Structure formats: C-alpha cells, structure tokens
C-alpha cells in the first residue's frame, strides 16, 4: 500500500517536472531538415531558411537528426527478445557490451536499465516508465538536465548551425555527448599563432 502510494506520488512529481521542463514557449511547425548524423561531433550542413518562429511548444516534437547508434546494435530486440529474459541486477556486463564504459555520473548511481527499457530494449524510458524512442532521447536527458534542456530548446545549448533568421537546426544530445561515457575527452589544440618577430619575411 505504502509502496503504491509512493510510486503514484513519485510519478506525479516526475510528470509535473517533465511538463514544466517542456513548457517553453509557443508553437513552431516542425519541418527543419534533418541532416546527416554522425558519431563524432561534426557540423551538419545548414538547414532551410526562414520559416515561422523557431521557438518550440511544450511537449512538441523537435526535429533532430537520427541518433548516432553504434554499428550493428540496433534493433536491440534482435537479441533482447523472449529468449533473453531481462536481468535488472546491477552487475558488470561480461558476455556482451563489456566494452562499454558506463561513467554517466561520478557517483555511479545510474546503470543500464535506469535509461534503457528492460522490457523493450528498442526504447528508452523516462523515470515514470513512459517509453521514449531513441529519436526523442532528449526528453530522457532533459529529466535530470533541466537547465540544459531549457537552453537547448531555446537554441543556446549545443552547437549552432543553419540560419539565425530561420529554423534552428537541433542536434540530439547524444550527437555530441556519449550517453554512457559522458565527459568530453580532451583534444589537441590547433597550432598557436606565430609570435611576432623583427625579422622581415
């Protein structure tokens, strides 16, 4: 009884926070061209010009390029079907997916089925249980990363390409941030400028 009550309250709270997270501003027609997806963070080509207001309505689907899934893993249900019952126990994965580094947060609280839906591995799921497709994974990230999802919807978080006076071109969170091993790796900087010297060329 107490457990059910707690679950109801929890899902109610999660639903409210999700709704408020998506409650940005009014309408825009979907229709931004999706561009080539890539696993690394490269610039997609520019999108179409000047449509109506680019701001998104609450809960409105945002056009994003296809998610950058690794080769050969999708559809997950190829393996994760009736023949492979879900095992929700936290454990290091040995037989498959052992190459994955899961380092989403420093305290190591999250583990696979917190995001992946154990009953349907072709989907992800929100905290309340609602399934989201990989194409809408930003909704999942946005549950916890509220400031970032707000900024992202406004066009302020993440790489900006396209037209400043037209439709914003959005990238999926996963296009730049690996969902599993999240922290950006260091990169080699491009060369420093040449210091000025007295010698003429």
């Amino acid at each position, binding site marked *: 009884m107490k457990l059910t009550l707690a679950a109801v309250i929890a899902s109610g709270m999660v639903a409210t926070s999700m709704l408020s997270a998506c409650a940005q501003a009014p309408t825009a027609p979907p229709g931004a061209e999706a561009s080539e997806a890539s696993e690394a963070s490269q610039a997609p080509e520019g999108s179409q010009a000047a449509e109506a207001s680019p701001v998104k309505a609450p809960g409105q689907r945002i056009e994003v390029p296809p998610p950058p899934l690794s080769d050969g893993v999708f559809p997950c249900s190829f393996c994760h079907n009736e023949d492979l019952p879900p095992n929700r126990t936290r454990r290091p994965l040995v037989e498959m997916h052992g190459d994955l580094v899961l380092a989403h947060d420093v305290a190591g609280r999250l583990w696979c089925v917190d995001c992946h839906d154990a009953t349907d591995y072709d989907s992800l799921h929100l905290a309340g249980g609602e399934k989201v497709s990989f194409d809408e994974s930003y909704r999942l990230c946005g549950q916890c990363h509220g400031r970032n999802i707000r900024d992202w919807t406004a066009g302020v978080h993440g790489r900006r390409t396209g037209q400043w006076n037209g439709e914003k071109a959005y990238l999926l969170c996963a296009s730049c941030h690996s969902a599993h091993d999240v922290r950006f790796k260091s990169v080699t900087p491009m060369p420093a400028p040449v*210091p*000025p010297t*007295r010698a*003429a*060329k």
Partner: protein
Amino acid sequence: MKTVHLFARFVTGSVRLILRGNNLYWAWVAFLVILIGSGALAYAHQVHTGLVVTAMRDQVSWGFYIGNFTFLVGVAAAAVVLVIPAYVYDWKPIREIVVYGELMAISAIVMCLLFVLVDIGRPERFWHLLPPLGRLNFPQSILAWDVVVLNVYLLINFAVVTHILYRAFSGRHYDTRVVIPLALLSIPMAVSIHTVTAFLYNGLPARPYWNSSIMAVQFLASAFSSGPAILLIALQLLRRFTRFDIQQDAIDKIAELMAYAIFLNLFLHGTEVFKEFYSNAEHVFHANYWWWGLEGHRTLVPFAWTALTLNLGAFILFIVPKWRRNWVTLNIGCLATYAGCYIEKGMGLIIPGLTPDTLGEIYEYFPTMTELRVAAGVFAIGFLLFTLMLKIAVAISQGEFGDQAVVEPNGAPDGPLPEPSALPGH
C-alpha cells in the same frame, strides 16, 4: 611681367647662392645628400616589400616614424618661443631673428609630413585625407584635426617668411597688415599643433599610459625645451660663419625661456611618474617597462635613464645664468636637452604606451636598419631644407641678395643696398 622677371631673378639668384659656399658648407651638404640617398633606397625597399621591413607588428603598430613625427611637431611649435617676444613684446633683438625660427618651423613641419608619409601603409592614397577629393573625418578624428592644423601652421609660416624675404629681396618693406596678423595667428597655431598632436594620444582610453590629462602641457614643455635648442645652435653657427650679427641678448633670452621650459618638462614627467607608481594600478606595467623592464624585457631601459640624465643635466646647465652665458656649457646643454627630449618624446612615449599591448602581450620593438635609414633620410631632408633656406634668408637680410644688389664672386655687394627699413627687425 615685371613681377615674373623679379621672381625669376629671385629663383636664379637663390640657386646661385646655394651653389656657392666654402668647404665646410659643401661637406655638410654632401653628408646630408648621402643620408637622403640612403634613406631613399631604404624607403624604396620598404615600398617594394611592405612595412614588414620595419619592426612594427600588430602588437606595436606605431614606432620610430611616429615617434619622430611627434618630436618634430614639438620642434615646429618651438618657433613660438621667438614669435612671442618678437611680435607681442616687440623686442628688437629677437625681432631680427624671428624669421629663422619660422624657417625652422617650416623645415620641421616638412619633416613631420614626410614621417607620416613613410609610415602609412598606402602612401599613394594620402590624398584621401585632403578635401575636396578626399574625405577628412573632421571634427571627430583627432588625426583629421592634426592634418588641418599642421598644414595651416605650415602655410602661415611659409606665407610670413616668403613675404618678408621676398619683399626684402625686392627692396621693399614687408606689409605689416599681412605679417603682423599672420605672425600673431601663428602663436595659437603653434600651441594648437602640439596640443592636437598630444590629443592624438590623450584621447585613446585603450592606452592607459597615454590617457593622461597632462599630455598636452607636457608636449608643449618638451617642445619649448628642445626646439629652441636647435635654433640656438643654428644661430651661433650663423654668427660664426656669416656676417650676420645676432645680438647676445637674443640668445640669452631664448636660453632663459628654455630653462623654464626644461623645468616644466621635468616637473611634468615627475607628476607622471608619481601618478603611475604611487597609484600602482595594473597599468603601471607600461611605466615599468620603460624604467625597469618587464619580465626580462629590458630593451628600452638604458634609453629611459639616459634621457633622464640628459634632461636633468640640461636643466642644471640652463638654470645657472653663468653657465647659460658660457658658450661651451650652453651648447652642451642644448645638445643634452635636444637628445633627452628626442628620446623620451620619441621612443619613450610611443613604445611604452603600446607595450604590453591591449591583450597583455609583450613584443619588444626596436627600429630596424631600414627604419633608421629612412628616418635619417627624412631628417637630412629637413636639415638640408633649413640650411638652404637659411643661406638665402641670411643673404637677403645682409643685403647681399636683393633686387638692387647682385653678389659679386668675391662676396662684396654690387649696387646700392636696399633701404635699411626694408629689412626685418627695423
């Protein structure tokens, strides 16, 4: 028709005059011509390759040329040290020699304009500055003001000098209705050329070393310290090598005025030093770079202390009347103040103002050989112009060169001398 003939005689006579002189004269002229030739070759190299042959870069985008320009504007303004006693106080001893101050002003302005010309990236586009063909951003840009006041000052001095000398040449007295107003106008113009040049630097908040209210006053003080120094040396040379009799009173008075100017210059530098080091705000690093060096970069430090020593030494020599009147110490003092002001107004103003640059980077600028050669060439042009003009002017005022007088090869005038009242100073 008569005018044209007279003018033609003036021109041909002048040419003959400047082609006649003793060995010392020719040695001096040859020296200057060699410098001009070297400068011309160096400048040709600069035009061919670009300003990259100088040591200026984005971080220190003004250097030796603009430093020399700034210093020479002061020298030009220093003619006013003669004009005020001569025309405002009508003091005879200086009245006789005021023309030579104005000749120095003309030579100095010509050098200033040449230094700007060799510094800009597209010298063939200089006419973009001159209305009506060009566009002068007046009154917003202080550089536009500088173009106006420098050229007006040049024109005034040129008009006064040519009027006086040509009239003397043609045996007539100069027209006071022309000369007096123009000469009086040249006083505020002299102040204005150096004030406007100071404002060039003063008005840039991006450069805190320059953004100080005393700039204009300090420029004038150093101008009146260094400009008359050259004049004094030139006048003494004239007294020595020509029959020109310059009264000792005139020289004493100029030296006395210089003493006050040198004091003011030192005092104002002292106030700058106090403000920078006592306030000890972040931008003291410009002053630090000049006096002590920064992070091991010490290129300008010897120049800083040399300039200070020269200026202090000059002050001591000038402040004691006995030493002012002794021609040895006077001339040492003149050279000292000239060199001291040259260093601190030239390199000592421009480079520390730009080092470190606006983003904190230290690029050590020091002029390249090309810059030094071009600058020497420009100085040589100015000195040559001054020498030649002096030769003609002195000859006219001595009565050796005039419409009624034709100079004989042995130097004695032939024919009646012009009326004494026709000459300046009477």
